[in-house]
């Protein structure tokens, strides 16, 4: 019998090895921080306190104080496109959500890249984090496909509780459509037949995420958590006491708050020098002229929106508190942003317009809209409209579904363990949602798995404040429903369809003109030409852009006045007047 076989020696050896290895093991775990992505839905750039809003968001503001605010961060103009890019690192026209399914044009039907979901060919953020040894969790709005091969458990998530659809009730499974009346949910790979008791989107998504993290702690792995709130997307459902919290707060009207937020943003140092506030939409009145009853009614919609934001922040606070309790807060990278600009289109009104079958569905399930005290309750469908969306998007022009700054620029906050950045720093790096996957692949020592991407890793910048994410030659393009944009350095070209745009390319200098008020196309034709060439010759062919042959703008011509002349000599708004031919071309009928 050798000496080393003696039980006492083996015990001493094992104990010694354990003592030696324990610090190594702990060090390894500490070097792999947890990743928490918090995504809000249809939140405007200015809706958090950290970005100049008056809505109470103390927990998000706390992350901003401890982390870094990025004021030049971009998403895509709509929900599914942004989520597809977030999960794949690819342009949404390549990854499967070239447009929103609801608005697919005839020439896009059946084309690869326009399926309306994240194509299963591509690896997801969850896949690479899973391969890096992370527990992977998702709760919230999925919006990346409803078929079995498309749901979270098929896309790299260990645990999930998600709403598969893009919007609907925050209280139950009520959807918006006659042919699709019920929202679909999955939990851990199973399609739910009903929702948990006391379900409310923000509360339940947070509860589930906390339970996933808690139950996964036993295996010692770090976690990758994707918490995709449905708030503050309409319908603006919110329960008491939140529902009453902001009552009367917005009676001053959208014009007041538009200016108030802009002033606060200036005071916070979020805006460049010589910046301006975007023009008020031409079809909205100055709220100063509105009657008190109208202000109260319109204000109620913003009250509910604010309450939803506040409530979401409260639930974020619960999660952060839990992370502190388990000692993981300091070791967690937190990335917070919204998926696109605020919703100012009153899409529900369009989807359920009179005469459509959805209108009958609305009458049955969504008709509780006759009194402001009912708004926010189940079966009411409050949406706050363009006036408040402009406030949410302060100081930008535009809202969700447009590549104007208000539709695509969003509030990004990143808090990173051992960051070299001073807490509360404001940075102006030109960044995009496609950067997140390259950042996390680099963080975990992997290669980007999905081919070419315009996404750039933030890791260098996050570790070294002297570095920047993009240089002056880097560019990013956007296209949604025929509206187009491209930003290179500080220059941006924009082609919005009328009446929101001119239908022609415009050029803006985003160094100071964040509000896109000064079209410099005629002043700098060479820059305009260069950027249009980039768009047409590089962005479009390399990113599978198929411009729709039927834009939703066509219908807008009939319910909104034009901002721009349709015919010579006719000012905006008079394009439908009687046409007067030249006198020499008048003639009597031939008998």
């Amino acid at each position, binding site marked *: 019998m050798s000496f080393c076989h003696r039980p006492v020696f083996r015990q001493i050896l094992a104990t010694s090895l354990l003592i030696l290895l324990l610090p190594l093991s702990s060090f390894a775990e500490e070097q792999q921080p947890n990743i928490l992505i918090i995504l809000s839905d249809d939140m405007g750039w200015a809706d958090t306190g950290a970005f100049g809003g008056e809505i109470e968001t103390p927990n998000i503001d706390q992350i901003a104080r401890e982390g870094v605010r990025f004021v030049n961060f971009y998403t895509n103009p709509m929900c599914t496109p942004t989520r597809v890019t977030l999960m794949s690192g690819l342009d949404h026209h390549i990854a499967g959500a070239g447009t929103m399914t609801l608005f697919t044009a005839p020439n896009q039907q059946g084309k690869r890249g326009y399926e309306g979901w994240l194509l299963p060919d591509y690896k997801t953020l969850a896949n690479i984090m899973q391969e890096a040894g992370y527990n992977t969790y998702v709760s919230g709005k999925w919006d990346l496909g409803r078929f079995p091969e498309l749901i979270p458990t098929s896309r790299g998530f260990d645990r999930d509780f998600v709403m598969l659809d893009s919007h609907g009730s925050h209280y139950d499974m009520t959807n918006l459509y006659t042919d699709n009346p019920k929202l679909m949910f999955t939990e851990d790979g199973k399609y739910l037949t009903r929702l948990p008791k006391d379900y409310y989107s923000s509360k339940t998504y947070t509860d589930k995420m906390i339970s996933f993290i808690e139950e996964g702690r036993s295996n010692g792995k770090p976690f990758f958590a994707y918490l995709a709130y449905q708030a503050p997307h309409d319908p603006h459902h919110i*329960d*008491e006491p939140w*529902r*009453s919290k902001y*009552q*009367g707060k917005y*009676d001053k009207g959208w014009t007041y708050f538009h200016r108030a937020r802009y002033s606060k943003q200036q005071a916070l140092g979020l805006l460049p020098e010589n910046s301006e506030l975007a023009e008020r939409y031409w*079809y*909205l*009145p100055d709220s100063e002229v*509105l*009657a*008190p*009853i*109208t*202000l*109260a*009614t*319109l204000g109620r*919609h913003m009250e509910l929106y604010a309450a939803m934001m506040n409530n979401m922040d409260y639930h974020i606070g619960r999660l952060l508190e839990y992370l502190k309790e388990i000692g993981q807060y300091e070791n967690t990278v937190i990335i917070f942003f919204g998926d696109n600009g605020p919703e100012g289109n*009153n899409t529900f*009104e369009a989807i359920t317009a009179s005469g459509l079958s959805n209108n009958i569905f609305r009458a049955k399930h969504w008709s*509780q809209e*006759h*009194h*402001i*005290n*009912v708004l926010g*309750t189940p079966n009411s469908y409050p949406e706050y*409209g*363009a*006036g408040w969306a402009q406030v949410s998007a302060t100081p930008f022009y535009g809202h969700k579904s447009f590549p104007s700054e208000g539709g695509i620029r969003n509030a990004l906050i990143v808090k990173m363990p051992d960051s070299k950045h001073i807490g509360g720093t404001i940075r102006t790096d030109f960044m995009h949602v496609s950067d997140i996957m390259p950042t996390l692949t680099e963080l975990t020592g992997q290669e980007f798995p999905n081919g070419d991407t315009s996404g750039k890793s933030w890791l260098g910048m996050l570790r070294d404040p002297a570095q920047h994410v993009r240089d002056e030659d880097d560019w990013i393009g956007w296209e949604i429903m025929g509206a187009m944009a491209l930003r290179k350095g500080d220059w941006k070209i924009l082609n919005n369809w009328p009446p929101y745009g001119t239908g022609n390319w415009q050029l803006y200098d985003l160094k100071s003109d964040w509000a896109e008020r000064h079209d410099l196309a005629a002043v700098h034709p060479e820059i305009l030409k260069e950027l249009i060439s980039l768009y047409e010759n590089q962005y479009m062919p390399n990113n599978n852009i198929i411009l729709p042959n039927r834009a939703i703008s066509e219908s807008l011509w009939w319910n*909104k006045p034009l901002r721009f002349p349709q015919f010579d000599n006719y000012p905006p708004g008079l394009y439908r007047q009687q046409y007067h031919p030249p006198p020499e071309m008048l003639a009597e009928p031939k008998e």
Partner: protein
Amino acid sequence: MNRRLIKADKLPGLFIAALICMLVSVSANAVSLPPRFYHKTLVGTNFIPILGISIDGNVNPLDPSYAVNADAQIDGNLVMAGYARNFSFFGRSAQLAYLQPMGDLSIRSTAGAEQPTDASANGFGDPFFEFNMNLIGPDPQRTLPDALRYNPGFSMDILIDLSVPIGEYNEGEAINMGMNRVWGRVGFPMILQIGDVWAPGHRTSLEVIPAVILYGDNDDFGPNGDLTQSTDPGSSLAMHFTHDLNDDIWISLDYTYLQLGDSEVGPVESDGQSFSSVGATISTQITRNMVASFGYQSTLDDNAPEDIKMSTFSLNFTFFWAPLLDGLHRIGSDGE
């Protein structure tokens, strides 16, 4: 202007629908005012209630002491009409109401006689004034937004009632329209909103109205008009559980408990009785400015001859107007 704005412009019209529950009406039972009587509405709103009542029992419904006429049958067809107005008083919501009973009453008594004895009275009863002021609860509704946002939550008022003895009273008559004595009441109406939404189609409330009733003397009482009728203070408790069936109709389950004070008529003293009654009310709006309600109430445990018996059918119409709402209607801005 976009669709949202247009909808908002129409809201004053919708507001009127919210107003309909806040009607004024009266009950045949003098100490049991109807459900939703103490809900608040826009300052400056005027009301004209007209209440038709058919009663059947053994007490005079206009007599707050409810002296039982044993072996007697009292029938009556009454109307109560009046005026009420909401206003702000020392920063609180308040209401002043005047109600005028009128009609006819008849009594058939069989006690101690081979043939029934009939008597009747008609004309005007004693006018009734009520002042009500909120102590705990929402601020006065000075603007349309205030009115739209009204949620009673828990609210408590103080009410002071006074009946002035100027109605028709004939000494020696078995029954009269006027009571020939002052009486009044001090109470504390309380409303508890049930549920967190207060809007047409969603309103549910529990209302509790405890009150003390005070009586003056009638010095011309009795068959010859030479007796004094005195009554000690009594108390009452009214309760209503109200609920909207839909946007336009609400119902109420009503309960009233009354503890009468000891009374003295000449040398005869008697202990105060107590009784309970239950009933129901249903109400709806019939025009932009008018609501109607129908109710029934009947006493409980009233089989013994000395028990108070009374059943009441009532049909109420309340016309209401507010200058601002009417102005909006005239210029077509109320969505009507």
